[in-house]
Each structure stands twice: as structure tokens, then as C-alpha cells.
């Protein structure tokens, strides 16, 4: 994408200009926290090629983060139009829906805050649930390379969801949150914080989208999932920004004893998408499934960094990342399984599969293991390859044309991951989105 902003805009770059904090909008603690985050972000250099977490990364795209500016407010008509467009799941299939346009809440439909439930936009929670929020807000530091971007996020974020599900409460239907970025070179910093009490259950879907396919925007999001004992979190990040956009997504899962978290990243849009996902398994019986599907095409790039950190004995994690790469697209996967001393009886799996649909596509995979405990079952593996002629021949021998065969194989390749979420309505929705992208390619 290269330099996308006129030179005169350079001064208002989100990397150069301090955020415009409105003293009346947020309480002191929040503003002070943002101010010090800004100072800290300023003090850190942009990532460089020699930094290990940025091996194989496209540093031009990293530098281009400086081309983005603060998002302007959206006008009412745009807001209305974006809300009208926000219909991924049927009304009968969700429990709530929040829509943010350039970080302003423009649609607000959520469960009542009964029985200790907190389901609020971040801006509201800062004021009305400050204490609860402070307890969990960005307590997980980014460690996979995007420290600067995490601080930048912290200094600017004002939108997204704070969801606190008290012990025993089960929200069976998902809560949907739409994050739109509108305007050329606009940037948004959507935040998602989900905290579950003992044995609580919840499902949340974040959609990251552009108001216009013609505009380049930046989404720099942070997601923290804090799963209490025996609780269950299902989380989906569905990124479908315009293909000129950039996406940075920093997520962490903290799973207590017997907590079960499944999170899935679906990468459809943006020119460049950097995702950093960490799971900390911190209590006996904790499990985290980390799933991802990306279908980059044209010159799109996905850059994926993961950590499965087993801090306690008898914990499990299972990572499955699949990329189906068309045209000149590119993927980077770097994953590490880290088993602490004493984290015996860990079961940890890590698989990255790349399906190369074109000779010009490029996949880089760097799986890793660091085991400091005994009685551990760990495996990691990555595969990269095209659809084989023998596979195609089997289809053709049944009368199915090669093009249809490729679509079915590719679709099947991604479907396996989507099915692991075990959420039929969401699975069907994500399948449709993947299918729509393939149709656009064909």
C-alpha cells in the first residue's frame, strides 16, 4: 500500500500527534492512564526487521501505520446506513448487538444488566463500572512484538465492549459487536474485554469492517478474555476490512481452572493483518482452543503470532490455523508452545496448514516448542502445499470440473476449522462469508 497520506497530514499521524482527550468525557483515572500510555508508546521505536517477533514481517506495512490519522466523527446518515448493514446473525440468533462507527456507539441493543451482569460499551463502563473495569483493563501485556501498538491502543481506545458475566450466568446466544472505520486513512482502536465468573458461559462476535471498500483504514484492536473457574467463553473476531486497510489485533486469553475457551479469527479483508494471540493456561483443567482461518488473495498478507503458555499442570491447548492463499498473497505464522516448570501433564497441540492455490502465493511457518516439565504431550507441525493433481483427478473422475473441485477442496479445508467452534449459527455465517470471498475470487 505504501504511503497513502498527503504530506501535510503527516503531522496528525497517530504515531506523532497526542490523542485529543476530552476532560469532560472520561474520569481522571482513565485519562491519566491514557496519557501515560501515550508517553510510553512514544518512547518505543517502531518494530524493526531484526526484532525476532517481526521476522518475515512486512515492515513497509508496519511503517505505514504512521500514515493513519484520528477518525473523524461520522455523520448521522452514514451511521444509519452502517447500522442498516449490520445484520450478520438473525435477530433470533443473537442476544445483543452493538454498532460502533469510528468509535461512536450508533446502535445499542443489549441484555439488561440484571443479576450482576455488566454489558456496556467501553466509554460507558469507564464511567459507570470504573472499579470493575480497572481490575481487568489491559492487565495482560502484549508480548509478541506489538508492545508499541498495544500502548497506542491503550492511549486512544474509547469504544468496544466490556462484558462481565457473573458466576453461574449463561448467555447462550452470542453478543455481536460491529466496529466500523470510516473515512480515508481513519483509524479505530476497538476494545473487547470479557470477564466470566465461575461456571458462567458467554459467546461474543466482533466484526471489524470498513464503511467503504474504497477507503484505507486502520483497526488496532485489543481483546482480553478472562475466563473464571469452570467458565466457558466462545469468541470470534471476524475481520473484513476493505482490502486497502490494515489490521492489528492483539488478543489474550487467561483461563483459570477448568475454564474452557474457544476463540477463532476469520481473516477476510485488509491489505495487511497482524494478529497476536496469547493463551495463558493458569489453572488445573484449563483449556484454550485457538482457531484461525484466513483466505488472502491478490496481494493480501496475514501475519500471525501465537503463544500457548502452560503455567499450571493438567492444562490443555489446541491451536489450528489454516490459510488458503490465492494469487500473490502471503502468510507468516510463528507459534510457540511454552510449558513452564511444574506444568506437568500438559497437552498442547499446534498446527498451521497452508493451502497454496497459486504458484505465486507464499507461506512462512515457524512453529516452536519450549518444554520445561515432564509427562507432557505436545506436538507442533505445519504443512504447506498446493491441491494435488491426484485430488483433482478424483473429482474429475466423478464428473466434477476442476474449478468446482478446487472450490470444494478449499472450502472443505477452511470448514474443518469453523466446525471446531461448535456454534452452528456462527459456523453457517462464517461459511457464507468465506464462500462469498471465494465467489469474488472465481
Amino acid at each position, binding site marked *: 500500500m505504501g504511503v497513502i497520506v498527503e504530506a501535510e497530514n503527516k503531522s496528525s499521524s497517530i504515531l506523532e500527534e497526542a490523542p485529543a482527550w476530552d476532560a469532560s468525557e472520561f474520569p481522571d483515572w482513565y485519562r491519566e492512564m491514557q496519557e501515560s500510555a501515550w508517553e510510553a508508546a512514544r518512547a518505543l521505536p517502531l518494530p524493526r526487521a531484526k526484532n525476532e517477533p517481526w521476522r518475515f514481517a512486512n515492515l513497509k506495512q508496519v511503517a505505514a501505520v504512521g500514515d493513519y490519522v484520528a477518525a473523524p466523527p461520522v455523520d448521522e446518515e452514514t451511521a444509519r446506513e452502517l447500522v442498516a448493514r449490520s445484520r450478520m446473525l438473525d435477530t433470533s440468533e443473537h442476544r445483543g448487538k452493538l454498532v460502533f462507527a469510528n468509535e461512536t456507539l450508533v446502535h445499542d441493543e443489549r441484555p439488561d444488566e440484571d443479576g450482576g451482569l455488566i454489558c456496556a460499551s467501553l466509554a460507558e463502563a469507564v464511567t459507570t463500572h470504573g472499579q470493575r473495569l480497572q481490575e481487568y483493563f489491559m492487565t495482560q501485556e502484549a508480548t509478541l512484538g506489538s508492545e508499541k501498538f498495544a500502548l497506542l491502543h491503550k492511549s486512544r481506545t474509547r469504544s468496544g465492549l466490556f462484558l462481565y458475566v457473573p458466576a453461574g450466568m449463561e448467555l447462550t446466544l452470542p453478543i455481536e459487536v460491529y466496529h466500523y472505520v470510516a473515512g480515508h486513512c481513519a483509524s479505530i482502536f476497538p476494545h473487547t474485554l470479557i470477564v466470566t465468573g465461575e461456571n458462567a458461559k458467554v459467546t461474543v462476535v466482533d466484526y471489524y469492517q470498513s464503511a467503504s471498500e474504497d477507503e484505507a483504514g486502520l483497526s488496532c484492536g485489543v481483546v482480553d478474555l478472562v475466563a473464571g473457574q469452570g467458565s466457558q467463553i466462545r469468541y470470534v473476531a471476524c475481520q473484513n476490512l476493505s482490502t486497502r486497510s490494515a489490521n492489528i489485533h492483539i488478543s489474550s486469553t487467561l483461563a483459570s481452572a477448568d475454564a474452557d475457551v474457544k476463540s477463532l479469527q476469520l481473516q477476510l479483508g485488509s491489505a495487511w493483518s497482524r494478529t497476536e494471540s496469547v493463551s495463558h493456561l493458569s489453572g488445573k483443567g484449563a483449556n484454550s482452543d485457538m482457531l484461525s482461518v484466513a483466505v488472502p488473495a491478490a496481494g493480501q498478507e496475514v501475519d500471525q503470532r501465537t503463544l500457548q503458555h502452560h503455567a499450571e499442570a493438567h492444562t490443555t491447548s489446541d491451536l489450528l490455523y489454516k490459510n488458503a492463499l490465492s494469487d500473490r498473497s502471503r502468510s507468516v505464522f510463528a507459534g510457540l508452545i511454552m510449558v513452564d516448570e511444574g506444568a506437568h501433564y500438559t497437552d498442547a497441540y499446534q498446527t498451521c496448514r497452508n493451502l497454496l492455490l497459486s504458484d505465486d502465493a507464499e507461506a512462512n511457518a515457524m512453529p516452536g516448542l519450549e518444554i520445561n516439565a515432564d509427562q507432557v504431550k505436545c506436538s507442533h507441525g505445519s504443512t504447506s502445499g498446493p491441491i494435488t493433481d491426484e485430488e483433482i483427478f*478424483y473429482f474429475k473422475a466423478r464428473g466434477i470440473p476442476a474449478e468446482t473441485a478446487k472450490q470444494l477442496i478449499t472450502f472443505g479445508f477452511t470448514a474443518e476449522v469453523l466446525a471446531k467452534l461448535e456454534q452452528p449459527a456462527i459456523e453457517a455465517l462464517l461459511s457464507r462469508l468465506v464462500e462469498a470471498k471465494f465467489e469474488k475470487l472465481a
Partner: protein
Amino acid sequence: MSIDIRDLHARIDDQEIIKGLNLTLPKGEVHAIMGPNGSGKSTLAKVLSGHEDYEVTNGSVSMDGEDLLELEADERSRAGLFLAFQYPHEIPGVSNANFIRAALQARLPEGEELDAVGFYKELYAAMDALEMDRKFTGRAVNEGFSGGEKKRNEILQMAMLKPVYAILDETDSGLDIDALRIVSKGVNAMRSQDRGILVITHYQRLLDYIVPDHVHVMKDGKIIRSGDKNLALELEERGYDWLSEESAA
């Protein structure tokens, strides 16, 4: 109406495997091909079904008068040719039901949708006839199937696609005794005046179940002997060596 193979020569990687083969498979008949390992039986099956790794250097193949060699593999299949593979390929991620459905859909005119309810009804009936568990509809095509399950799955596809001509490449290998009986029953149910079937096998036993009208012996890329079903019995007893001695003489 028949498949007619005349003086067929085919090679792979500059190695000639089929060396002047003649064979006629008329509708309404079952023919068996037997022959030693490496004689080119599977190669013949793949050449007929249009595998692109093989190059036909000479000869002709027609199917009901149509030049088969002019058609792409998928066109041959849609024209009514079926191959049950000796080693069926595994297709991860594509369910058996969706695969067969796509094959049937490919046979419909543009814009016409396969009737899903009717499809499943027919699929379940075919699976029941082959005593296949329903769980095989949802499983990925051949993935993790046992050897025998894969072979049964090939016959399921044949039953669903109802080809005019079918080539079964060692469908009996890997089947247990009961499965052999069930699968043979499935094949026999498909015997008809409107269908020609070519079974490739090493074992005379199969031919007790699927009784052929003609038996051919293939060796070194050619048919070197043809006869009735008694030829298979003779081969069982004497092996193949006496044939090459005779033909050399």
C-alpha cells in the same frame, strides 16, 4: 453400443505401459481382466478415464461411437464412464454426501438445482443396500476409511452416478468375506442391458459372485488371451506363465 479400444498405446514419463491393446466392452455384458502385477491394468483404467499423466501415443477409444480420447476426464464421467479406483484418494474437508451431491449436480443443466430431499433418500437407500453406516455421509471422502470401507464407498458412488460403463479396479482387494458378498450384490444389482462393466481382479473368487461373460488376460500392456469364465478357473490353477510360453511359441 460399446466401448471400443483399438491398438491402444499409452505411456507415462516416456515409458510405454499400454502396448497395442484391443478390447470391446458391449453394453449388457460383464468382462473381467486378470493379469500379473505391473501388467498395466490400472494404467488402462486411468487412461480410459482420462488421467492427464498418461499420454496416448497411438490407437483409438470410442464410447458408443463418441471419441473418448477427445474428452476431459470430467466430461468422460458425465458422458457415462465410471472408474472405481484401486486406491481411492482421500479428500479431507469434503463430506461424502457433499461430494456425491456435487457429482450429481455437475450432471444437471446449468441453473437447475439438485433436489436435496430426493438426493438424501436415494443416498440412504444405496447405503442401506451396501450395508454402510449413515455416519459415512458426514465423514470426509475416504479420509481415515479402512481399505474395505474405501472400496465400498467407490461402489456407493457408482450406485449413485449410474454410469453406462463402469471399470472396477480390484474392488475386491481389501474386502472381508461378508463385504465381498455385499459389494458383489451391489454390483450385480447394477448389471443391466444398458450397462457394461469391466472388473479388474486377481482373484477368481470374485468371479464366483460377479459372473463374467468374458475373461481377458492382460500381460505387458496387451490382452494376450480371452475366453469365458472358465479361463479364470484355469488361471487360478496354472498361473500366468503357461500363457506367455504359448503366445511366445
